[in-house]
C-alpha cells in the first residue's frame, strides 16, 4: 500500500514539476562479455525490457559491466554509464532495476557516495531500487565455487570450475558478511541506505522441465544446501536481508530476471 501510494504521489509530482523519469537495469555477475551492450541486453531478454518500460515508452538504460569484477570496479563502470545517460537525457527521477549481483553493485554506490564523484549526483536522482534476487547476505553457491576452484589442486593451475573470479568471491557469505559490516549500508546494525531498496526473492527451482538450467539450479541448491527457500543461486533470507520485501516469486534464478515464467516485468512496470 505504501509503495502504491508513493508511486501515485510521485506521478503527480512529476506531472506538476516536469520531472523526467527513467529506468536503469543493472545485471548480475557472469562473464567479462557482459560489458558488451548486446550481451547485457540479452541477459534480461527483450520481453523483460519491454514490459518494465511499458512498451519502451519509459526512457531506459541497460548497463553493461564486466561481470567478473569486484563490486567497486563494477560500480564505477555502472556509474559512468548512468551519469552520462542521465545528464544527456535530463533524467532526474530514476528507478533502478537490478538482478542478483547487480543488487550488490548498486548498494556499493549507495553506501559509498564519496568513492567516486559521480555517485552522489546519481544517488540524488534515484527514486528507489527494485532488487531481484540480490545476494545481500551472500550466496552459498558462491562459497561452493571457492571450494571447488583449482586453488586446491597441487601441481595444476587449471581452474576446473572456472568462475572463482572477483565477482564470485564478492558474493560468498564470508565476503558479504565482511563488506556488510564495513562498507555497505542497509544491513542489520549499519546506517540506513539513502534510498529505499525493494527486494524480490526467488523461492522456486523447477520452472521448466524442458530447460537444462532448471536441472542445474536444482542440483546447485541440493549440493550447497541453502537454508530455507531459494531460487537455486540465492536464498530467500539473503535476498531479504536488506530493504523492504516487495514480493516473492517462484521464478528461479534463471527466470526471475525475465518476464516469462512469472511476469516480473509487468510488476516492475507498476512503478510508472
Amino acid at each position, binding site marked *: 500500500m505504501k509503495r502504491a501510494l508513493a508511486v501515485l504521489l510521485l506521478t503527480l509530482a512529476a506531472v506538476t514539476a516536469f520531472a523526467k523519469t527513467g529506468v536503469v537495469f543493472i545485471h548480475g*555477475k557472469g*562473464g567479462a562479455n557482459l560489458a558488451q551492450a548486446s550481451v547485457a541486453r540479452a541477459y534480461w531478454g527483450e520481453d523483460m525490457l519491454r514490459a518494465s518500460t511499458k512498451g519502451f515508452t519509459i526512457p531506459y538504460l541497460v548497463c553493461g559491466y564486466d561481470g567478473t569484477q569486484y563490486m*567497486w570496479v563494477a560500480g564505477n563502470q555502472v556509474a559512468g554509464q548512468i551519469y552520462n545517460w542521465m545528464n544527456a537525457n535530463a533524467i532526474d527521477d530514476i528507478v533502478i532495476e537490478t538482478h542478483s549481483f547487480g543488487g550488490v553493485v548498486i548498494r556499493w554506490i549507495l553506501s*559509498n*557516495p*564519496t*568513492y567516486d564523484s559521480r555517485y552522489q549526483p546519481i544517488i540524488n536522482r534515484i527514486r528507489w531500487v527494485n532488487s531481484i534476487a540480490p545476494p545481500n547476505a*551472500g550466496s*552459498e*553457491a558462491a*562459497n*561452493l*565455487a*571457492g*571450494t*571447488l*576452484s583449482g*586453488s*586446491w*589442486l*597441487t601441481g*595444476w593451475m*587449471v*581452474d*576446473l*570450475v*572456472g*568462475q572463482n573470479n572477483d565477482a*564470485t*568471491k564478492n558474493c*560468498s*557469505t*564470508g*565476503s558479504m*558478511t*565482511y*563488506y556488510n*559490516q*564495513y*562498507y555497505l549500508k542497509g544491513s*542489520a*546494525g*549499519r*546506517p*540506513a541506505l539513502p534510498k529505499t531498496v525493494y527486494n524480490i526473492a526467488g523461492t522456486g527451482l523447477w520452472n521448466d522441465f524442458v530447460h*537444462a*538450467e532448471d*536441472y*542445474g*539450479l536444482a*542440483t*546447485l541448491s*541440493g*549440493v*550447497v*544446501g541453502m*537454508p530455507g527457500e531459494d531460487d*537455486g*543461486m540465492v536464498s530467500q533470507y539473503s535476498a531479504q536481508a536488506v530493504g523492504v520485501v516487495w514480493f516473492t516469486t517462484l521464478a528461479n534464478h*534463471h527466470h526471475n530476471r525475465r518476464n516469462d515464467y512469472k511476469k516480473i516485468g509487468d510488476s516492475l512496470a507498476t512503478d510508472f
Partner: protein
Amino acid sequence: MKILLALALFPASLFAADSVGTFAPGDMLTPPAAHAPANVSRMYARTLTPGERTLDLPAAGDSSMIVWTMRAVSARLVTPTGRTLEPDAVQSSDRSLQRFRFEGSDLGFGKGQQQVMHVARTEAATYRLEAAVQEPVTVVAAEPESRITLSTWAAPLSRQPGEPVTLHAELREGADALTEARVTARLAPANGKAGESIELFDDGRHDDGAANDGVYAITLNDLPQDAAGLWQVRFEADGRTAAGARFARTGSGELMAERDAARLDAASIHATVHGENVRITASVDVRIAGNYRFDVIAADATTRAALAWAEAPRALTAGPTELSVEIPLALLANKESLRLDVRLLGMDTPGVAGRVEREVSVR
C-alpha cells in the same frame, strides 16, 4: 529534518565530503561478527585423476545422493549391491538411479556440459564411480537430506597482521557429536595456491572446547604466507557414524587478511565538545599512503542504543596523523558518555586498516 538541521550546523572549516546520519529508534550498536556464518555442508568433493579408473563415494545411508561431475565424462555409477547406471543410460532399470546433464556456463561454473547422477535413496555403504579421464575431473557428492553435517568457519573475519587464526569445524549427526573423525584444512591466499594440509583436533587442547564434543579446531600463530586479501579455507572430514557407516564431508571458510595499511591508536580516541558538535579524534600511523575513510558509529554508553554515524573521507600521506570528524550534539541526544565504534577503512583497496570500540566521556 534532523539530518538537514545537523548539516546546517556544520562549520565551514570542516571537510565538505563528511557526512553524518542517525539510526532508527531501536537500532543497537552491533560489533562486527568475529567470523562469517558457519558454512554447513552435506557434501564432499573429490578429484578423479588420469590413471585412476574408480572413485569411492561413501554414503551414510540416510539421504538421496547427488553425484555431480564437472565434466560430462563417460562414467558408470555402481551401487554397493551391484546395480549400475551405465555411461549412456538416462536411468537404471528400476529408476532408482537417474542421470541428467546441463550446461555449466548457465550457472557460472565454466563452459562445458556438467553431468549429474542421482540416487533416490542410498545404502550406508560405498558407491563407486568408474570413469577414464584424460584430465583431472572434480566430482561432488552431496547427501541433501543427511543428518551428518560439517559446519566450518575461520576467524577472525577481518584479520590484522600478526593476529592468530583459528580454524573451526563441527561434525554432527543430527544433534549428536561425531567424534574420532579425521578433520583437516588447507588455506589458500587470494589468487594463490593452497598450502599443506593442517590437522584439526577435538581433544580439548586446541581451542576446540571440550574433548570429544564434535568440535575440531586449531589455532595458527600466523598465516602460511604473508599475503593480504581474501583467504579461503577448505576443510575435509572423514569418519564413521554412530552406526559405523563411513562418511565424508568438505566444507569452507574465509577470512580477510588485512594489509597493515595503518594502525589506529585506541588510547588516543577521545570526544570533545566544539560549539554544537562533538568532535571525535584519533591518532593514526599511516603505512600506505592513499585514500581512506574515517568512520564513527556512536551509541549510548549505557544502553548501547545506536545514535548517529559519521563518515569522513581523507587522503592520507604516510606517517603519523590525527583524524577527526564532528557529529552534532543534537544527534547524540546530548549524552555525556558514548560507546564509539571507530574505523579506518582503505578506499583505494577496500580493507580495514583499523577498528577500535571504546567508551568515551564527552568533554
